[in-house]
């Protein structure tokens, strides 16, 4: 049976990306919230909120995506976390994956890439 994905958190410091990612999710019937950095992503979970999917940017001020992913996993957050970044250095991508990602997609995010992430979530 397919898992129903109804909520997502967009973690990105870029307002253009925030808007596009939210629209991508909205068009697939997924409600979303946005935060501007890793620390805000952690804080929103500390406040008690939970999401089926987290779209995590890598390079952000205050707390980057690698640190935030690591922290969320240490907190026991089992949501699907998909790294979404323009950074293409293999080393950095590996570090990001090791921090606890379930998937990684290169920006810019498209419908096809998001659908691919969701299929992975369903198989999780």
């Amino acid at each position, binding site marked *: 049976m397919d898992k129903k994905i109804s909520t997502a958190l967009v973690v990105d*410091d*870029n*307002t*253009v*990306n925030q*808007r*596009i990612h939210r*629209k*991508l999710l*909205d*068009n697939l019937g997924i409600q979303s919230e946005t935060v501007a950095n890793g620390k805000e992503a952690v804080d929103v979970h500390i406040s008690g909120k939970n999401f089926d999917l987290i779209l995590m940017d890598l*390079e952000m*001020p205050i707390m980057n995506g690698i640190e935030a992913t690591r922290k969320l996993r240490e907190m026991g957050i089992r949501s699907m976390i998909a790294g979404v970044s*323009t950074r293409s250095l293999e080393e950095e991508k590996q570090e990001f994956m090791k921090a606890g990602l379930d998937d990684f997609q290169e*920006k*810019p995010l*498209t*419908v096809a890439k998001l659908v691919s992430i969701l299929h992975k979530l369903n198989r999780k």
Partner: protein
Amino acid sequence: MDLVQLQRQFVDYTTSLFNEGFLDDQFNQLQQLQDESNPDFVVEVVSLFFEDSERHLNELTQSLEQQNIDFKRIDAHVHQLKGSSSSIGAQRVQKECINFRGYCEEKNIEGCRKCLQQVKHEYVLVKNKLETLFKLEQQIIAAGGSI
């Protein structure tokens, strides 16, 4: 100009923007996201891009005029600009940002200053092109047509 002529002009103009490298497929992706619930989505996102870009370009101009150049800060702004331009399909702006980041990494002040001028140049070009495209769209809609 009648509706058919306007629609032809719109198609030709859009094609030229892709052929000349101003826009890439990501712009098509944005257009495909637009729907009845968000009929002005593309204009909304591109307007965000304009606001965002102008803020970063102003910051970059000021930063490169300082006595002590903070390359980390400059790189952060260029990274943002690269991200936004990539997300809306502004290919030529994105490419200049990639060059710019290279000079930041090398801490090459002259290189950075030259790149800033290039980025500004490409940004102004794509902004004018997109504003013309949106004006054409509005004319078509006003004439009772659709895109």
